[in-house]
């Protein structure tokens, strides 16, 4: 059971938003769908959930075609950046209707979370700040109990405390009862410790689709005195450098040499550095 995407293409006139994308979201896994602004992340999620139409290709949810198929799309909840709930609707009414449309929606838990986030459920959508708008949508996403939950830029406008609380609640819920979570974001650092699988999308194409471990093992960072680091990295594929006074950190692709000089320290690669390197190819050239 999974979501299979086969040769998905979406064109807006001359512009190709998704170019022959094929991938699979397996059951009970946390995915990071990473990409720069306009990379095609939201387009992909919107096609899977039947909000927009593909130009060609196929999306199968547990083997069912997702286009205009209530049974297939009801398996997925997409918390989108854009608010689709009516502006005049109160948060408590949104909880009520979520329970009707998604029978497994846990309304009691939703009120508990609203209390935790200090969200006034008597407020209308139009009365909420950007942060609280994200919060009420996150609460629905955390209580909807569908097998697949897509979160498109979930922490938009949230302060540090609420972001931390959300990630904690997400991990708690996932630990209690695993489900498939796809977090679409360009804030790599925040989710790098949560995700199991990273999908990097750029210009409508999938650049990387591998486990976080595999991805992080594809390189390393080396730190030390600038002269020592420069000498070591000479002739190697470098994806970035940070210099502070006489100290330097270089991000290197490949495996570290066995005869690493003692003056240098080797640590694991930074996912964000790797992302920037992979999605910045045009500038590098």
């Amino acid at each position, binding site marked *: 059971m999974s979501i299979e995407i086969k040769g998905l293409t979406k064109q807006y006139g001359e512009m190709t938003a998704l170019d022959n994308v094929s991938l699979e979201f397996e059951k009970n896994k946390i995915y990071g769908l990473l990409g720069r602004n306009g990379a095609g992340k939201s387009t992909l999620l919107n096609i899977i*959930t*039947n909000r*927009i139409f593909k130009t060609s290709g196929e999306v199968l949810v547990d083997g069912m075609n997702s286009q205009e198929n*209530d049974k297939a799309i*009801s398996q997925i909840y997409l918390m989108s950046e854009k608010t*689709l*709930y009516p502006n005049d609707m109160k948060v408590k009414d949104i909880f009520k209707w979520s329970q*009707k449309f998604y029978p497994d929606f846990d309304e009691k838990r939703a009120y508990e979370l609203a209390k935790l986030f200090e969200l006034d459920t008597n407020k209308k959508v139009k009365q909420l700040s950007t942060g609280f708008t994200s919060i009420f949508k996150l609460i629905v996403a955390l209580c909807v109990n569908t097998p697949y939950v897509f979160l498109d830029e979930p922490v938009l406008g949230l302060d540090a405390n609420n972001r931390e609380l959300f990630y904690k609640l997400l991990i708690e819920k996932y630990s209690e009862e695993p489900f498939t979570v796809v977090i679409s974001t360009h804030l790599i650092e925040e989710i790098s410790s949560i995700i199991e699988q990273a999908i990097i999308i750029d210009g409508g194409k999938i650049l990387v689709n591998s486990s976080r471990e595999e991805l992080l093992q594809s390189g390393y960072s080396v730190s030390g005195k600038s002269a020592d680091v420069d000498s070591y990295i000479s002739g190697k594929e470098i994806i970035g450098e940070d210099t502070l006074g006489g100290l330097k950190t270089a991000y290197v692709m490949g495996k570290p040499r066995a005869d690493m000089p003692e003056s240098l320290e080797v640590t694991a690669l930074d996912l964000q550095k790797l992302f920037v390197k992979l999605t910045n190819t045009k500038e590098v050239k």
Partner: protein
Amino acid sequence: MRLKNSYLYQLKGNFKPITIFYSILISLTVVTSIPALIQGDSFFQMSGWDFAILIFMFVMGCASFNEDFPMHLQNSVSRKTYFSAKILSVFCVSAIMTALYTAFTLAVHFIFQFLIKNAGVVEISSMFEQLYFHGEGIFSFSMYFWTALLIFAAAVFVNMLGMFISGVFYRTGKLMRILLAAGFPLLVIMILPLIDYTFFGGTLYAEIFKFIGNVFGIFEQEPWKALVSFSVLTVVTTVAAWLVIRKAPMKNK
């Protein structure tokens, strides 16, 4: 299950506006009936409430789409389920509006004819009564029956028309929306009459009115023709609305 919930959602969305509409109707009737309560020989006739119902239904048809459609996309409801539920709710709301109107007019007649002694006459007459039944008595069953049927059929049609127009506006760009909003009334109210007057000596519009009068049975006083015409118009508008909505995407702005 999703059809039922979508239907209930769309139906409940109408309850508050219906309550407001009938609160206004009752309040205005009470206020305007005061002279009849004081002066036994006064006669007061109110008309146009059925026309107000049709305007209300049209506005509801226009307004509901922009909020209901995104809400259904958010809750993983397909367009076909949303549209099917919409049709069901339109029929139901039209029936409710018609039943309330009929009950209201009967109640007003009953109150002023029988309940309050020495009161004046307060009459509520509808546009359809004036078109098809101006020779009938006040308590003609066939008049009430046909008036209710025609209000219902027209209400269904104008609501679907509102949805169709809203769908067209949703799917077209800003420039096209302006062209449609300003261009269509301009064409019908100014340009065509001018062309008609200049080149056809007014016969074009005369023929159009004659055609409308015939298909709606106004000249022959045959309300069944209007019922058939409204039904045909409803089918055409519903099909057109579905063609517009079936591929409507979520809008980002």
